[in-house]
């Protein structure tokens, strides 16, 4: 077990930020902490890193209790904070060298690591630039390079793609996959469900400081009653909605303008059943497509609200 968090409670006066939160990270895993802004993702990371006091609970990293003086554990950790955390008056190369030097004392090895980190985040053309001269996306890349140059076994990435353009975002996500392939275990926080779906082997959905559910992408989607949604638009809408409830496995029907959103519970042949219904009723459709459930649907069912509400 790389990280184990048991019954973590963190209070800010009357407000409970973390409510008996539990979490485990296996070696070689990318664990996603998914939840809306303010749900406690960053607080979990700050507590694990011993930056924040907490009221109850236990935190172990690499099987040892984590404290502010756990320098041996800290040597194996890399952190990429949510906000860009670099020295504004040092160049790209100097920043990476400074932070890498806090872990790696051997000068020649450090030099090699710094160059590799610069290549890894694609900042080769900017090594002599100060951070304030870089675009938002490039600053984020530098933020990542400063956190991973020393090749940590465990990496915390706290919403590294917030406010980043699509190109930099893809670059960052590819880089995270590569880090994981090279052996790093990763805790990744995000409120972008697409990122969690594509990147993480296991996901914890959080809300109000609680661990609502955890599992793989597929396991989470299997937990909800709606397995499929089919969107149809008819030329002759009329009162067809009520009749569609007779189709096998239909649990609910919603109207969105002229579109019908037909929700099915777990079952097979939903599209075929719906097409047969259309044929039997001599209906003409102008739109017809199926949506598989997303993590947002999982979150919606668990909390009654969307991830981006």
């Amino acid at each position, binding site marked *: 077990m790389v990280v184990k968090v048991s019954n973590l409670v963190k209070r*800010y006066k009357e407000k409970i930020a973390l409510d008996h939160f539990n979490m485990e990270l296996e070696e070689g895993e990318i664990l996603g902490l998914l939840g809306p802004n303010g749900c406690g993702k960053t607080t979990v990371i*700050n507590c694990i*890193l*011993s*930056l*924040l*006091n907490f009221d109850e609970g236990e935190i172990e990293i690499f099987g040892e209790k984590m404290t*502010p*003086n756990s*320098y*041996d554990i*800290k*040597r194996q*950790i890399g*952190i990429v*904070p949510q*906000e*860009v*955390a*670099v*020295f*504004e*008056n*040092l160049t790209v190369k*100097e920043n990476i060298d*400074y*932070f890498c*030097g*806090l*872990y790696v*004392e051997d000068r020649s090895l450090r030099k090699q690591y710094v160059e590799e980190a610069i290549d890894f985040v694609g900042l080769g053309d900017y090594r002599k630039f*100060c951070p304030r001269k870089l675009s938002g996306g490039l600053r984020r890349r530098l933020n990542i390079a*400063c*956190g991973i140059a020393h090749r940590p076994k465990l990496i*915390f990435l706290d919403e590294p793609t917030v406010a980043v353009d699509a190109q930099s975002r893809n670059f960052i996500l590819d880089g995270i996959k590569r880090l994981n392939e090279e052996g790093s275990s990763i805790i990744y926080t995000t409120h972008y469900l697409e990122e969690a779906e594509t990147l993480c082997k296991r996901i914890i959905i959080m809300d109000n400081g609680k661990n609502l559910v955890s599992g793989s992408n597929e396991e989470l989607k299997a937990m909800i009653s709606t397995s499929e949604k089919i969107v149809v638009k008819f030329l002759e809408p009329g009162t067809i909605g009520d009749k569609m409830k007779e189709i096998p496995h239909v649990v609910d029907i919603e109207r969105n303008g002229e579109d019908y959103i037909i929700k099915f519970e777990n079952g097979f042949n939903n599209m075929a059943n719906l097409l047969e219904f259309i044929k039997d009723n001599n209906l003409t459709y102008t739109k017809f497509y199926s949506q598989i459930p997303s993590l947002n649907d999982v979150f919606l069912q668990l909390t009654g609200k969307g991830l981006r509400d």
Partner: protein
Amino acid sequence: MKRLARNLFYQGKNLLGEKALIFWGIIYPLIMALFFHTAFSGIMNIELESIAIGIDKDNPVRYILEEIEIIDVHVLKDVEAKEKLEDEDIGGYIDGDLKLLVKKSGINQTVIKEILDQIKQMEKLGLPMERFDFSANYIEDKNQRADTIIIIFYSLIAMVSTYGLFSGIETVSLMQANLSNVGKRLNATPLKKKDFLLAGIIVSLSINMLSNAILLIFIKHFLKLKLFTGLLYSGILIILGNLFGVGLGILIGASSKRNANAKTILGIFITLVLSFLSGMMSTDIKIMLDKRLPLVGKVNPISIITNNLYKINLLGNTKNAIGGMTILGIYCLMLIFLSYGFLRGKTYDSI
């Protein structure tokens, strides 16, 4: 040692890139010096004049005073002396008990009092008066312009010597997870805070002393003012002022969660008030405080530096310098210990 060297290099480079710090540390003092010089240049061109003192003909110190070059002794009776004091024909009157009577406070009265104190002390110690060369001590450099405006420059130098507080604030801000993003990252690394703090103190002191040197060179070579004759004591006082400033900055930085700008403004406010009380804006304030609340001048660090720079370089008097340095040293230790108390905590209630 390697770690310290790396921290010194990178922290130094980062601090030198802070434009606000360069402005307040280097440009602002030069502007102030130029402003004072321009505003008071007419007054500063007045050459040293002799000081008229009234004294009874039987007073035992009369012969000593007559030997001092800058003193113009007027033999007077009590009644006559009071009239001349009232008309400001004499700066002061020394009675039979060696008490100094003055109508107003000023630089001349300060010089008379210094001389009188010296005479009394030598009498107590039973030392022969001939052994003390009053002329040499009070007019060591005939080119020295002894006027009240010089105090303003000493006060400016004293104030600027404490401007290490800006880099002190910045250093603490960078190392605290609840004050900066870099602090958050640093606290998650194996870096030990004391390494970063020590490097920050050394860098802050070095940068501020460099800026002090620039100011002194500017005053000497551009404004053509010769302010220093006692370099050793003056240098030690200025270095202690630097250490005090850095310590104050670290304490201000560590003691609250306000942002660095708010803390910088607080630092400027504190140093301006202390400088005001030490006579930077008006020497009348200093003279009034020395007369009514002498303790303020004795505990105000900028007054300690100002007064001692003045006494050392203008009056050639170093007897109070060690006391002043000791008080400044105690302040520095107190600031460092208090700051350590704030910085010792390694986890935070909120970030």
